[in-house]
């Protein structure tokens, strides 16, 4: 086991996994908030655009999106960010993961809005609060608390999905796993354990934190 860690950049590969997770989570949150605002906005056309975004990306395989980012965006259309091809692939992997998971962030936030009983909004309006007041003072605080569990699940899914970036040669852990297994078939079980334990170590705190937060902050009904 020691010689595996000596011969292969295992921690580096998990580092790339964490890097992809971190930046994609930021991208997906920003995009997802924009899309959910479109979806709950009073303008029908914008609602439809939000729904279109969710339906397109939620129903496309992530593998296809990531490969298309490479084939279509970099190779064919030449949207390049740097001299280095591998850095371009890394950046486009982050963009692809963000675009894909924004659809799920949007749905998570919307399910949070759905946990707020209709009476709350009606009460806010009958008190004479304006739309923006009832949204920011009454609905959103409860909606965000209600969305913690699904948001946490989306983050865990995102972490696991960063492995797909191996399809365009990003040096994260599943690519290294393949290399290690080809080179050292005798250490198969050890390699599986290293990768599995790595993911459990990364995702377990996320799950614990989400259930802790949603138990603490969740609104009892």
């Amino acid at each position: 086991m020691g010689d595996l860690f000596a011969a292969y950049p295992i921690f580096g590969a998990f580092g790339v996994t964490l890097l992809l997770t971190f930046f994609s989570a930021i991208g997906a949150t920003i995009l997802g908030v924009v899309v959910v605002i479109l979806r709950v906005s009073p303008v029908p056309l914008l609602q439809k655009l939000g729904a279109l975004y969710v339906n397109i990306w939620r129903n496309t395989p992530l593998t296809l999106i990531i490969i298309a980012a490479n084939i279509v965006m970099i190779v064919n259309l030449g949207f390049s960010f740097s001299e280095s091809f591998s850095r371009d692939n890394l950046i486009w992997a982050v963009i692809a993961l963000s675009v894909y998971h924004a659809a799920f962030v949007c749905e998570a936030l919307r399910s949070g809005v759905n946990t707020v009983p209709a009476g709350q909004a009606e009460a806010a309006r009958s008190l004479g609060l304006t739309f923006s007041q009832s949204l920011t003072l009454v609905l959103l605080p409860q909606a965000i608390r209600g969305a913690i569990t699904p948001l946490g699940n989306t983050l865990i899914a995102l972490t696991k999905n960063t492995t797909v970036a191996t399809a365009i040669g990003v040096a994260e852990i599943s690519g290294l796993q393949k290399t290690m297994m080809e080179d050292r078939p005798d250490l198969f079980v050890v390699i599986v354990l290293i990768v599995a334990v790595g993911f459990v170590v990364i995702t377990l705190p996320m799950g614990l934190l989400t259930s802790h937060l949603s138990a603490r902050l969740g609104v009892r009904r």
Partner: protein
Amino acid sequence: MSDIVLFDAPGPVARARHRLLAAVGAVLVLAFLAFALYKLGEKGNLAADKWTPFFTASMWVDYLLPGLVNTLKAAAISVVLAGAFGLLFGIGRMSQIAPVRWLCTGVIELFRSIPVLVMMIAAFQYFTYNNVFVSDISPLAAVVTGLTLYNGSVIAELLRSGVSSLPSGQREAGLSIGLTPWQTLQRIQLPQAITAMLPALVGQLVVVLKDTALGNIVLYPELLTNYQRIGSNWSNIVPAMIVIAVIYIGINYTLTVIAGRVEQRMRRSHGGGGGAVTGGAAGPPSLAVETAVLEADEPRLGAR
């Protein structure tokens, strides 16, 4: 909560503002589409000879349909196996015998936290190195193994959350008429839990179907894998990817719509006086099952 209660019925000023916002949105989207078409056209992707091959029989008979058949084959086998796995471990997790319960919980939690691709790569390497299958079946077996382990664990978890959110009176009633705990589970709790899970299960089909595309990475000749062969034959790799994406979106969107219909139908039938199995008590508790199952698990399920 329906979205409409978020705001009052718009007056003249608000309507004018909404029209303005809609116009801005439309302009932005059209500008984006125009830019995309311009860039695609600039590299020659819109030329007629890149698109006409999709109207030939050879394209469909030799490339797209075989890929689609392989995709559906992997998905179908995985769904059946995952259902069996989920039922087995889901019931095991609710077992009266503590070691069985711990073992099943451990297995479910483990396979839920490892990425599907990691399991596929491991299975592929294991199968090829140990010659478990005739060599050309290994990729299919690897795809099926990965999908079964992951989706089976998710189904097991769905089953458990379905059973545990049934009203406790259901179990008590079963026990008090002299059924054993196993008979109560099998005859009273499971049928209700499975019905309540139905929409989430149909939704899970989308996840399975999308994840077959990971087979591309372990050399399984599914639909996505053929973009390269199409591209090298007609040098139209970008149109090929677009057509393949449209096929995936078409199938998965249909499944999503079906899942929504099933859910609506169940909500309606429960709302209107309770199901035949459970009588009057079915209404609100079953609804609670659905929302609990959906809200706790769906985003994660959907996201893989």
